[in-house]
């Protein structure tokens, strides 16, 4: 019985906070928009089985068909995946050296460094993204500094472009990439690197041939932890991006709040979910293989 409770609790949690919301959204996606409160039909007005049967009878896949009709959605999904992919690579490139130097720092320093990586989370995410406006705008800190140093004569146009979005994403998601890579590198036996040098590798060759392959699980975990949330990212592109920065999170927001078309917004969300399930499943399988390999 106790066992059942222990096992049952996480499932109950999943059912309550994943399955129920998912079914609610799915139901909305299958419904039609309506000028009403709430703004969709069929609503479950009549209590009991008869009412439910009526609701189910009113469901159709119209919204999904509608999505295929307008290439805005198609382009938004593609653009989101592209932005997520590019920013994941950029984040990894910045995160790896940070994680490496943390893992190589003196053990007494490591908790402090770890703390510093997590520290930005103590300030509101929204405020931190807004702060980037002050840095990246034409009259911002970055342009002023570069112009004062005489490196540029015209301010660089960064804010309200994809570049600003990339900067914002890399900045925001950096800790998610640093932590798994650090955890992996920190566990690595330092004598592996010495053994590689001893057997004839220069330090750089040893790094490529031994450290990078061995930190692959950490790199993959970091990539997924960045990629998956960035695909659906809304705040960063809407604050730092330009009007032409097309991301599915923004499309979803517009459908929901500007058009008040809850059913189409829900259909967009459902497709996004299925798009993300593929990398999530890949990630799980990789993790599984890793566990098996470590025996």
């Amino acid at each position: 019985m106790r066992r059942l409770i222990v096992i049952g609790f996480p499932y109950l949690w999943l059912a309550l906070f994943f399955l129920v919301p998912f079914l609610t959204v799915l139901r909305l996606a299958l419904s039609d928009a309506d000028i009403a409160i709430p703004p969709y039909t069929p609503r479950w007005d009549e209590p009991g089985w008869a009412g439910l049967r009526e609701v189910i009878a009113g469901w159709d896949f119209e919204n999904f068909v509608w999505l295929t009709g307008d290439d805005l959605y198609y382009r938004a999904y593609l653009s989101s995946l592209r932005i997520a992919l590019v920013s994941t690579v950029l984040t990894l490139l910045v995160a790896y050296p940070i994680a490496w130097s943390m893992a190589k720092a003196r053990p007494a320093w490591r908790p402090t460094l770890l703390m510093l990586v997590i520290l930005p989370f103590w300030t509101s995410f929204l405020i931190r993204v807004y702060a980037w406006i002050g840095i990246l705008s034409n009259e911002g800190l970055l342009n002023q500094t570069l112009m004062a140093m005489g490196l540029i004569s015209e301010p660089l146009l960064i804010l309200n472009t994809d570049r600003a979005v990339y900067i914002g994403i890399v900045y925001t998601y950096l800790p998610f990439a640093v932590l798994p890579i650090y955890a992996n590198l920190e566990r690595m036996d330092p004598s592996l690197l010495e053994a590689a040098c001893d057997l004839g590798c220069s330090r750089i060759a040893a790094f490529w041939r031994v450290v990078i392959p061995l930190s692959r699980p950490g790199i993959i975990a970091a990539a997924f932890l960045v990629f998956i949330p960035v695909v659906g990212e809304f705040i960063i592109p809407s604050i730092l991006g330009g009007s032409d920065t097309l991301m599915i999170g923004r499309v979803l927001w517009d459908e929901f709040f500007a058009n008040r078309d809850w059913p189409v917004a829900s259909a967009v969300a459902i497709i996004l979910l299925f798009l993300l399930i593929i990398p999530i499943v890949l990630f799980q399988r990789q993790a599984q293989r890793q566990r098996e390999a470590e025996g």
Partner: protein
Amino acid sequence: MTDPAPPPVFAPWADDGAVPLINLSGLTKRYGDVTAVNQVDLQIYEREFFSLLGPSGCGKTTIMRMLAGFEEPTGGTMTLGGQDLAGVPPNKRPVNMMFQSYALFPHLSVADNIAFGLRREGMPKSDIEGRVAEMLRLVQLTKLAKRKPHQISGGQRQRVALARSLAKAPKLLLLDEPLGALDKKLRTQTQFELMDIQENTGTTFVIVTHDQEEAMTVSSRVAVMDEGRIVQVATPAEIYEYPGSRYVAEFIGDVNLIEAKAGTTTDGDLTLHAADGAVITVQSAVPVPAGTDCALSIRPEKVAISRDRPDLDNALPGKIMDIAYLGNVTTYHVEIAGGQILKAMVANAAQRSEQAFTWYDPVWLGWNAARGVVLTR
């Protein structure tokens, strides 16, 4: 049929004309205020199986890491085959190391681990295959070539590490506690394998260990270290029979040390006056001035125990306080006048029930003058 001629005695250190492979001179390593290695002078010859022996923190590992190139000396010089090693990075030294943790690459198979160094060297592919197969045969792991390190046992991993470090045919192989992770039975067996491999390949081995038994078994010579200094370098037998100081005597094997003042020397026999008044005679090749504080070192197995006063150069009466029965041998702890406990070890040729002595028996301990060693340090 005549017996083959006995092999010539291997003792290049005794030959004045021999040129050492490794020459350490005034080698020093400091970490801040701590001196890990202090003014070490050492010559190691080709084909030697040389042990650096000492407790943890004595600097033995630091010397090894300096030879491998992972640490730069603070002072002194190191030469290998006449070449000064200062500033030569690890990947440019004809030296390989077998790590205490083995440091096998977990993402590579056994064969790829062994081939790792050869590939870095740019050896042709077919030659690499041949060399890997040869190494696998040497350590008897041919069947496991395709396995990953986590799929084989600890003893097999140890052999892969050995094969990998020998694959490049280094002039010098460094072994850091090579058998430390193995259980006792496997360790004894592996010691002999290690000696065979060393002999067959003719490689010079320098091994770091804190296990004196291991050092005694495998080495041609042993350097006993203490607090960054080498206190004695000699063959295992010499170290055991003629320790140079109280530290060495106590570190290697079991020993009785009797503190005494030197008396007169006649015909090489030195008279010692122990604190409790006992007079002990000991042979001493080096003259010890009368009045010097010194210690008599006598190994327990060289002390005879008997009921009646033995007809030996030295005889001390005492009482058995403790008996440690170890199966093959029994050690008697005998209290002599003055309260000091001396150990006498007797091989158990007979069954235990037939043993002559029991607790609190009055007995005599005896040994000849040649059995003891006088230590002034």
